[in-house]
């Protein structure tokens, strides 16, 4: 059981370049999330999805777009990367309930030069 898989694991971009981060889960979870992790700031929610074909903005959505065309996949796009987007990105999924448990991927380390 792979759980939550993120690709790529590392990426270096130049300012203005675009890229897509892929998240795939094999647990049939309805809810999926994209977080960014920065030193001293914890994990901040970028976008999330409550089901196939639905997406919503989180706390820090500017500069990012997402799509959930298939239930198992959640894509995070950067159309024009900026140095402020240098971060570690985590995808997570869950079945929401009273005692929910988020399952996280291993992260993507992105550097924007």
């Amino acid at each position, binding site marked *: 059981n792979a759980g939550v898989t993120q690709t790529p694991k590392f990426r270096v971009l130049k300012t203005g370049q675009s890229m897509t981060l892929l998240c795939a889960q094999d647990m049939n979870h309805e809810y999926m999330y994209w977080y960014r992790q920065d030193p001293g700031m914890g994990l901040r929610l970028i976008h999330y999805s409550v089901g196939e074909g639905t997406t919503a903005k989180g706390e820090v959505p500017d500069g990012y777009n997402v799509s959930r065309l298939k239930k198992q996949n959640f894509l995070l796009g950067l159309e024009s990367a900026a140095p402020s987007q240098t971060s570690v990105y985590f995808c997570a999924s869950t079945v929401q309930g009273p005692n929910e*448990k988020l399952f996280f991927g291993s992260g993507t380390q992105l550097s924007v030069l």
Partner: protein
Amino acid sequence: QQQVKQSPQSLIVQKGGISIINCAYENTAFDYFPWYQQFPGKGPALLIAIRPDVSEKKEGRFTISFNKSAKQFSLHIMDSQPGDSATYFCAARRLMDTGRRALTFGSGTRLQVQP
């Protein structure tokens, strides 16, 4: 805006000692308070969680203490071991504008347990 404030930022404890990490919140609509543990190069993993109608929850060496009136909760690690060395995040679940719920995380505490 930090909705969940976590302290300390870093903590060094001797093997066998007690590690204590504190979190405070302001939004009384939070309905679920988990703690996540993260090892270097890995994603966070759920460690233990509590609901606001309970004042304490214990699982093995890990205990959450919850003070609803003070809007504070803390993680206690008893008999701390070198294998507990990791970054710990508190979190609180809130209602988003969409009517769905999502977690807001604290800033994290890097725990180092010395042998």
